């Protein structure tokens, strides 16, 4: 039984062409061997067993594909054999998907992506990044101003589980306590993974909501940054401003960078659908969607790094100076990468 599973299915010998009494059946029998050969190649391609395909077969693939396609065109006009026509249509379609299928594997794509495709996509949405950055700064300022006017706002802006004792009016020692690390690495891996998973889910949501012309994305950005602004005010008020910024910057430069990109990607899709220019809305949406998808793949990657930084580096490094240094180095790394990566390769790997 197991043997039968792995055995290559035998191709049945073809009947004598002259035996067919209909002209269209003779047409079919003359070409059937080629169709079956094409089908065998297509099946190996579909099941990703590339080693099974011999060199001759691979070279013959485009020719066989075109032959089958022209057979189909002829058969449509000369044959009334419904089963053969249906088979040919399905075969040509499947062959077409393979001939024009994705050329790269996931890993091949990843290499192109990290080697420049990502930063090219990021650079091409610079306008949305600028808008999202302005919105984020405005959101932070709004949070700050609201809470400084009326501390009650703090509870509306910062969810209870996120606050964790960081409240307006809490004394300095209690606030400083919340910035302490844990000193050992126990339990931190799970924490880092949780942060990564959670933040990625939020970023993907922010992107997906950009579909509605970007407005929900903007709202999400404003709301999230307002809670940051509120917290900033609380810590500055207690004279712990620098410590808080350092504590936040360890992972924050990476994480907020990722959120910025996710928001900008969502905006990019929304903006190109609202203002498609001289393209149709459909093609504008498809173009921007693919570009934004590259940015988003990068966002998930950044959040994985942010999760590690937040889970480990922040908990293990106590010195505000060292924390600030890590955050600044990360920021510098990202800026350098996005500015320079993929310049030489030109548009290689950029969204089509």
């Amino acid at each position, binding site marked *: 039984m197991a043997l039968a599973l792995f055995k290559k299915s035998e191709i049945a010998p073809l*009947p004598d062409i002259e035996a067919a*009494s*209909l*002209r*269209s*059946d003779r047409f079919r029998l003359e070409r*059937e061997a080629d*169709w*079956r050969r094409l089908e065998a190649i297509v099946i190996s*391609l*579909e*099941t*990703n067993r590339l080693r099974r395909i011999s060199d001759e077969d691979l070279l013959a693939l485009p020719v066989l594909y*075109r032959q089958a*396609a022209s057979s189909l065109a002829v058969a449509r006009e*000369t044959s*009334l*054999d*419904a*089963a*053969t*026509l*249906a*088979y040919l*249509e*399905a075969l*040509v*379609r499947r062959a*077409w*998907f393979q001939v*024009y299928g*994705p*050329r790269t594997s*996931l890993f091949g*794509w990843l290499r192109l992506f990290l080697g420049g495709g990502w930063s090219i996509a990021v650079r091409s949405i610079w306008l949305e990044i600028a808008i999202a950055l302005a919105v984020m700064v405005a959101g932070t300022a709004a949070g700050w101003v609201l809470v400084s006017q009326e501390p009650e706002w703090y509870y509306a802006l910062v969810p209870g589980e996120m606050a964790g004792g960081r409240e307006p009016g809490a004394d300095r020692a209690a606030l400083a306590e919340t910035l302490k690390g844990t000193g050992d690495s*126990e*339990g931190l*891996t*799970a924490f880092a*993974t949780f942060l*990564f*998973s959670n933040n*990625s*889910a939020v970023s993907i*949501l922010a*992107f*997906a909501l950009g*579909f509605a012309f970007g407005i929900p994305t903007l709202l999400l950005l404003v709301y999230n940054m307002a809670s940051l602004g509120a917290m900033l005010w609380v810590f500055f008020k207690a004279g712990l401003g620098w410590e808080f910024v350092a504590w936040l910057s360890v992972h924050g430069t990476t994480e907020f960078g990722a959120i910025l990109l996710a928001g900008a990607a969502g905006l990019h*899709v929304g903006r190109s659908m609202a203002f498609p220019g001289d393209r149709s809305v*459909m*093609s504008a*949406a*498809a173009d921007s*969607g*693919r*570009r*934004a*998808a590259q940015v*988003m793949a990068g966002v998930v990657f950044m959040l994985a790094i942010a999760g590690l930084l937040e889970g480990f580096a922040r908990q293990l490094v106590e010195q505000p100076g060292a924390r600030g240094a890590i955050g600044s180095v990360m920021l510098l790394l990202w800026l350098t990468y996005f500015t320079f990566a993929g310049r030489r390769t030109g548009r290689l790997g950029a969204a*089509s």
Partner: protein
Amino acid sequence: MNAVTAARNPSEAKRRRELVTPEGLSLPLTLASKGARAGALMLDLALIFLGLVVFSLILAALGIGISQVEGEQVAPGIEVVLVLVILLLFLARYGYFLWFEIGPRGATPGKRALGIRVAARGGGRLTAEAVIARNLMRDVEVFVPLVFLLSGGASGVAGIAAGVWLAIFVLFPFFNRDALRAGDLIAGTWVVEAERRKLPQALSLTPRTPGTYRFGEAELSVYGEHELQVLEGVLRHDNAEAQRKVVEAICRKIGWEPGHGDDRQFLEAFYEALRARLESGMRFGKRKKDKFDR
């Protein structure tokens, strides 16, 4: 599934699209029906769910329960498991569809089971970015509404507003011609039928003694292409009872006396003669759609 049968089935005719490949060949495509797509999604979700259940059963069999995770101090062994669980949930939500659709089949197991796949709209290459884009949107189209419904759905004005908002995404495929969901629109993709078909035997191969049956112009001119294809189906299914009925129907129509014992022979001969006649008509540009076509 060719042009003739499609014309008789309006819902399928509506889903047919012509695709022009880069070398200028016109390739017929049939968009996947909404039913098939919904079915594929259900299958995939069921598979994911099943996978998660199996995983948690394995954990339970290993004696790892929630209770051990909730403690203040997390043991190192448990922590690895916890990391695995979080990553697995993340991958189930975002990775499953992505991984399968990037592959050469362009289809998740559910899609493959229903004979459909993802393709680039307009005949281009299906790129990894397109697959990523369409699956990022899946989040607001499938998972968020699912969580929303499971968590009790609409309550209050905000709940109803959220429900309406999500309904826009869920019902999106019903409001455009190509049944695109929001993710398809963003990614420039669509979902098409891509089933495998077997090539059956050619029908005019059976040798028979010439002159057993001879059909004249009058007998053959009563039927058209549609009837020919019905007859082809009957011959391919090879059901004696159905063949008997068809023999009787044909004989009534052409005014012959139905013989006994050689139904299949008669049908094959009639099929061949009719097909030869209709195909020679085709070569001269004359087509007869069905028996009503004059």
